């Protein structure tokens, strides 16, 4: 490396000659003609070496030497003099000149002097460099020691924390099962965003990230930079909590709740950040499982082809399924007996109430009507719902529509069973018939004609009663399609009215038949349909005779129709029915008439009408009376239809 050299001499010739010589020796040379110019040049160019003449006007070489050394002690100065004056030499050396060269300048002597200076400069530079390096090294080493100590302290904190968590987890494991499945990854980060220390579980699951970037454990690419909980905590100095996805060694992503806390703060500067990530994948899985299970139960609840109602002790519906809502309306918040059975008070023998009492399942069969007026037989099962204390808080009732099953069962019921169900009705008739025979015989024997007359009347009525029963049983036992014949509607209506009228008169009931003219024709099974209508009208008469609440009673038959259908309306002002009786009215073996009823009549009447493609409806109010309305399609062949409208 070429040394920078400043040559100072007042003689132009020496400046030029020495200047050339020094350049040839390989130095970079500047020149100055006096002391002031030299100081200026040094100030701007900072030469390594100054070569100066001693004898100069204004400021001599000695003076220049003093000034240089006082301001720039490291600059080497070589003095040049024409006099070999020892005093002058000593004076120069006292003022720290590096060397002394005499004029005329010997090239070799100058070169050797310059080399010595260069060596000295180089030595000094190296020394300075060593010193500086040593200082730096010492600083570096001691920094490292400090950092290591700090990290060791951090490791101890982590270890202690891990131990504490482990203890906590051990304690909790005895209480609850899944703490072991809820792993905690702990790491400490330094302010260079490097992982300093991790716990064992962190290393096992996420890998050994010590010395790696703080964000390497995060799966989300957006987090793999400075925007992650650790860096943000360094920045803000505040603890944070967030949900993150961590990247496992296996490549799988682990959902975790990450807590970051600044630790080791010094002068408002966060030194380390503690990162604790709680793996919630197990919880997520359990939550999902729970959700799925709940969904499954909800689906099951809603899609089960049964009516499901959950109610409390106060008869309030807490929940019902979709099918129930469809057929009975939303029941939640309503009373079960009103929503399901249109009653104003709890039903007798309620299986749900029994379950509340004894905690056992119960069942009951009943008849209900849907909101669109359909009737169905249902079988209800009740099951208790317990709370965690084992108390019954609610009861669930499952009701199945067994209308079809009942129909099937009904048809499969043997005649024997049927007679069993009707036995008391049959017994009543037999008793009365025997009575009639006894009175006839004894009347004849005693020649008591009044008794004979009464007995004969009794026997006639009873034979008619038994005849109806037998016909009903036969109809029931041999269920057949109607045998249709085309009839005049008005004629048919008058015929039916004629059957009932005498009995109504006997019972002192006003019977009226409003049968319009020009009602046309229809195709029906005359025997079955007349039996059905007579049955309904006889019921009307029975309802009037059993009612003592009115002065007079009426039974009215009205027949009318249009092109498509014929309508029969039978109205009485007898006893009337409550809602439950109304609902059971068409049910097999249901009778409200005690000994006189068999529970067959209305069931068969409704069956006959349904088989004709018609519909039967009843309106009734307890104490007010009952009204049946029957609609029958004309069912005419093309030719008959013409005749029907023509009439």
């Amino acid at each position, binding site marked *: 490396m070429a040394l920078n050299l400043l040559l100072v001499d007042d003689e132009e010739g020496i400046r030029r000659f020495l200047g050339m010589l020094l350049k040839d020796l390989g130095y970079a040379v500047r020149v100055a003609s006096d002391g002031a110019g030299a100081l200026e040049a040094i100030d701007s160019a900072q030469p390594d070496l100054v070569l100066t003449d001693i004898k100069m006007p204004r400021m001599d070489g000695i003076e220049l030497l003093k000034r240089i050394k006082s301001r720039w002690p490291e600059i080497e100065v070589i003095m040049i003099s024409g006099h070999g004056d020892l005093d002058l030499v000593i004076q120069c050396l006292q003022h720290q000149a590096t060397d002394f060269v005499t004029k005329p300048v010997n090239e070799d002597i100058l070169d050797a002097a310059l080399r010595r200076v260069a060596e000295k400069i180089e030595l000094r530079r190296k020394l300075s460099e060593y010193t500086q390096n040593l200082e730096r090294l010492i600083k570096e080493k001691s920094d490292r020691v400090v950092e290591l100590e700090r990290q060791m302290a951090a490791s101890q904190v982590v270890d202690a924390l891990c131990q504490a968590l482990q203890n906590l987890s051990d304690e909790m494991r005895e209480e609850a099962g899944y703490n072991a499945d809820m792993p905690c990854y702990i790491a400490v980060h330094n302010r260079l965003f490097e992982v300093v220390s991790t716990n064992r579980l962190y290393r096992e699951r996420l890998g050994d990230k010590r010395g790696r970037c703080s964000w390497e454990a995060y799966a989300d690419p957006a987090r793999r930079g400075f925007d992650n909980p650790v860096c943000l905590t360094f920045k803000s100095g505040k603890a944070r909590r967030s949900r993150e996805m961590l990247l496992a060694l296996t490549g799988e992503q682990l959902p975790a709740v990450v807590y970051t806390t600044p630790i080791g703060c010094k002068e408002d500067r966060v030194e380390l950040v503690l990162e604790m990530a709680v793996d919630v994948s197990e919880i997520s899985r359990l939550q999902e499982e729970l959700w799925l299970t709940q969904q499954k139960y909800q689906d099951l609840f809603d899609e089960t082809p049964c009516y499901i109602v959950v109610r409390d002790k106060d008869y309030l519906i807490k929940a019902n399924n979709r099918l129930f809502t469809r057929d009975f309306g939303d029941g939640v918040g309503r009373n079960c007996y009103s929503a399901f059975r249109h009653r104003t008070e709890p039903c007798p023998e309620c299986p749900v109430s029994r379950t509340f009492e004894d905690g056992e399942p119960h069942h009951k069969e009943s008849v209900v009507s849907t909101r669109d007026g359909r009737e169905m037989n249902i079988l209800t099962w009740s099951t208790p719902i317990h709370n965690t204390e084992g108390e019954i808080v609610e009861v669930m009732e499952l009701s199945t529509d067994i209308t079809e099953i009942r129909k099937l069962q009904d048809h499969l019921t043997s005649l024997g069973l049927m007679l069993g169900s009707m*036995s*008391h*009705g049959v*017994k*009543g008739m*037999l*008793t*009365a*018939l*025997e*009575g*009639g025979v*006894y*009175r006839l015989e*004894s009347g004849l024997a005693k020649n008591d004609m009044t*008794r004979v007359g*009464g007995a004969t009347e*009794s026997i006639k*009525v*009873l034979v008619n009663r038994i005849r109806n029963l037998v016909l009903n049983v036969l109809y029931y036992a041999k269920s057949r399609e109607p045998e249709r014949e085309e009839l005049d509607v008005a004629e048919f209506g008058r015929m039916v009215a004629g059957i009932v009228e005498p009995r109504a008169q006997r019972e002192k009931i006003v019977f009226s038949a409003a049968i319009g003219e020009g009602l046309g024709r229809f195709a029906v099974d005359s025997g079955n349909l007349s039996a059905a209508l007579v049955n309904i009208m006889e019921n009307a008469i029975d309802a009037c005779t*059993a009612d*003592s609440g009115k002065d007079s009673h009426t039974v009215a038959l009205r027949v009318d129709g249009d092109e498509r259908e014929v309508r029969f309306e039978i109205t009485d002002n007898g006893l009337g029915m409550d809602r439950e009786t109304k609902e059971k009215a068409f049910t097999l073996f249901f009778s409200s008439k*005690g*000994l*006189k009823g068999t529970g067959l009549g209305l069931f068969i009447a409704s069956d006959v009408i349904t088989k004709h493609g018609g519909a039967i409806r009843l309106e009734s109010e307890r104490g007010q009376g009952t009204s049946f309305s029957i609609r029958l399609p004309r069912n005419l062949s093309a030719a008959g239809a013409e005749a029907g409208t023509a009439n």
Partner: protein
Amino acid sequence: MPKRILVIDDDEHVSSYLSDLLGDAGYETDVAANGQQALALLEKKRFDLMTLDLEMPDMTGPKFNKVLKRQGRSGDIPIVVITGHMGLKYVIPNAVAEFDKPIDREALLAKVKEILG
């Protein structure tokens, strides 16, 4: 003086039969078609026995019995239950006899004779 029997049954054919049957056996009879009529007759006349049907339109046999009890008459007049519901035969605990329908005529007459002496 002939013994008096009250026949209670809502089926007129049955009540006229029982009335004639007991009348032929030498008893005097009255007929009630329901509970109210029976109670009215019991107010007016003295009876030595009554036959009771369990199903009447205005009240059941047990209800009728309860009304009697309330009036303090229970036990005064022996009750013979005549019903088609043999399952219900013990619902009148103070009844002296029960008969199933159709009635065994001879057994009924024998029992009435035994009770009335």
